[in-house]
């Protein structure tokens, strides 16, 4: 892909791990300005919260294993609230942009770092601070929130648990998100290497770029909404309180104006990973590069118009319902375009069935199910029956976990050798994948069926008629968790005991594969001049 002047001969062997800058020890990490180190810092924190989120989910499923109860209803309310807050704000929204966006976007565009390295560090510190504030809210001021991660008014205004602190923590996390967005947009505009035109950017970069725009534009809306919750509780301002003329439905509008686009902040980066990985393991240029790039922008744009589909039964006007339902059907189109293009890329490709591709294939399958179930619930008449049933968490776990989650795992398995200079055990990775895929579908498909049968969500107990499906779901969750354990153990082992990895084990054509594994501190000995597209495998093979 690149005719670089320098990388054939000079591979600086000092990796960014060895070059610690001004400080030593832990300070060389938490005060670093190196985008790669910052990416790894996010990696550690996000994964820690992922594990906590899984543990919370485990206890939720344990409660739901059989009718009856092993905990107080209040406890269950707090469990699903914290599970949601943790997973959404501390894991799935930040994960790919902050870990892989930070680590790889600058390299993929041929830059030495992001546009604002100090702001990048600030973003991480805001992230940690927000996370700590949320954790503190669990143990102080009345206890953990029980409102659901959606904090609907007026309940969130009245419940005596520590809503203000939790909500403030999320506000701080939002600031981190906005600054990351500003950084990555500016980086993409200003720091592309010579010849790295917009139509030669890896699709991962396009995806992160689109995501960053959404982060900048919609996060402030939830920011102000959360501030208003705090104002409401401490000062009694009245904007969402019906007793003072406020409209709780307006809260929902403001909340979902962010939180629906947030689902695109969640999924777009994962789609970017798929778009980068599939060509490498099909040894074939991506089908319809421009269509995928533009469809990402379209998803970001149209996806900001559909938030009312969370509110069909809230009391909003029928007219709004019809409008939002129509827009929801429209947003499925660009996503379908991507799925089609990925499959078309695989068609007649030379398939290399390595773990990164397996996770991509799972993504395509699970995301499609999630997307189709989304269409079902996007129809007004269906929604009346499906809203607030298990169908909804069934749907969004297919999209978020099946989609983004497996996309994240694809990214782990694809970029692991580049980030750590080592390879994991591929066979173990494939087994982990299989176990997870089986467990996942047993678990979440049962949820879809439960919802279809009418099982309400956020209930701590249920009628005997639902027992079999709940049992199956819990059982599936245990298989899924087993798969996760196998996967993470394998990766962890690979980190310390894995074979040393080559610079380009997969034969990728994007810039990160043209530098050493792990990369040197400033990424490139000399900034490359780009003359070809990011999936030009033919060129790569010609260059040896």
């Amino acid at each position, binding site marked *: 892909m690149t005719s670089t002047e320098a990388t054939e001969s000079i591979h600086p062997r000092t990796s960014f791990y060895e070059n610690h800058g001004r400080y030593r020890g832990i300070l060389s990490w938490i005060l670093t300005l190196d985008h790669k180190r910052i990416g790894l810092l996010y990696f550690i924190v996000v994964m820690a919260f992922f594990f906590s989120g899984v543990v919370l989910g485990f206890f939720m499923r344990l409660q739901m294993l059989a009718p009856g109860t092993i905990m107080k209803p209040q406890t269950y309310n707090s469990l699903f609230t914290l599970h949601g807050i943790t997973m959404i704000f501390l894991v799935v929204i930040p994960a790919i942009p902050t870990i892989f966006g930070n680590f790889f976007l600058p390299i993929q565009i041929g830059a030495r770092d992001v546009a604002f390295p100090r702001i990048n560090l600030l973003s991480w510190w805001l992230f940690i601070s927000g996370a700590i504030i949320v954790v503190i809210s669990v143990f102080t001021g009345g206890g953990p929130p029980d409102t659901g991660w959606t904090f609907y008014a007026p309940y969130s205004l009245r419940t005596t648990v520590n809503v203000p602190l939790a909500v403030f923590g999320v506000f701080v996390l939002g600031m981190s998100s906005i600054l990351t967005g500003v950084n990555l947009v500016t980086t993409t*505009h200003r720091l592309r290497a010579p010849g790295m035109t917009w139509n030669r950017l890896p699709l991962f970069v396009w995806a992160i770029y689109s995501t960053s725009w959404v982060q900048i*534009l919609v996060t402030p*809306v939830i920011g102000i909404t959360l501030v208003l919750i705090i104002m409401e509780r401490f000062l009694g301002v009245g904007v969402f309180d019906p007793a003072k003329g406020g409209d709780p*439905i*307006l809260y929902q*509008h403001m909340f979902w*104006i962010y939180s629906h686009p947030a689902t695109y902040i969640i999924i777009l980066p994962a789609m970017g990973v798929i778009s980068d990985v599939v060509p490498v393991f099909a040894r074939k240029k991506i089908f319809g590069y421009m269509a995928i790039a533009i469809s990402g922008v379209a998803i970001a744009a149209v996806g*900001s*118009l559909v*938030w*009312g589909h969370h*509110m069909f039964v809230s009391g*909003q*006007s*029928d*007219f*709004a319902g019809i*409008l*939002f339902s129509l827009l929801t059907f429209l947003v499925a189109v660009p996503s379908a375009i991507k799925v089609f293009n990925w499959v078309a890329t695989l068609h007649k490709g030379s398939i290399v069935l390595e773990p990164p591709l397996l996770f991509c294939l799972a993504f395509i399958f699970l995301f499609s199910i999630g997307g189709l179930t989304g269409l079902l619930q996007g129809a007004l008449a269906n929604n009346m029956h499906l809203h607030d049933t298990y169908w909804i968490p069934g749907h969004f776990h297919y999209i978020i976990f099946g989609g983004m989650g497996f996309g994240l795992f694809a990214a782990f398995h694809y970029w692991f050798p580049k980030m750590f200079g080592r390879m994991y055990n591929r066979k173990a990775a494939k087994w982990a994948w299989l176990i997870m895929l089986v467990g996942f579908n047993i678990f979440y498909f049962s949820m879809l069926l439960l919802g279809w049968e009418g099982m309400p969500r956020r209930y701590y107990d249920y009628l005997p008629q639902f027992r079999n499906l709940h049992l199956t779901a819990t059982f599936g969750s245990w298989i899924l968790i087993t798969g996760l354990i196998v996967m993470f153990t394998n990766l962890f082992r690979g980190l310390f005991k894995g074979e040393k990895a080559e610079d380009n084990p997969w034969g990728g054509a994007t810039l990160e594969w043209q530098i050493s594994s792990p990369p040197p501190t400033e990424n490139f000995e000399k900034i490359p001049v780009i003359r070809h597209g990011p999936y030009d495998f033919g060129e790569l093979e010609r260059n040896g």
Partner: protein
Amino acid sequence: MKPEEEIRKTRYKTYALVWMILIILTGMTLSAAGMELGRWTVPIALAIAGAKSGLVLNYFMHLRSERLLIFKVIIPLVLAVFLIFILLTFSDLAFRGGVR
């Protein structure tokens, strides 16, 4: 220095003129408030405020002298986003009683 980085120095006179127009527009919006404008009250107030903002954006904030495409795009973009949020929210608020 790259072409887009050339500092175009604005004249003090231009700033003073812009300020004068801003004050006049403020006067206009004040007197408009005293008039009976019915359903045009809000649109006119917003139009004047919009004109004032346009002056601040273009002259005080130098948006007019920015060359790159991205700078020309961002304000229309944020306006479009805001407009969409408000319009779609009103598709709920204005039709609670049903579509007439």
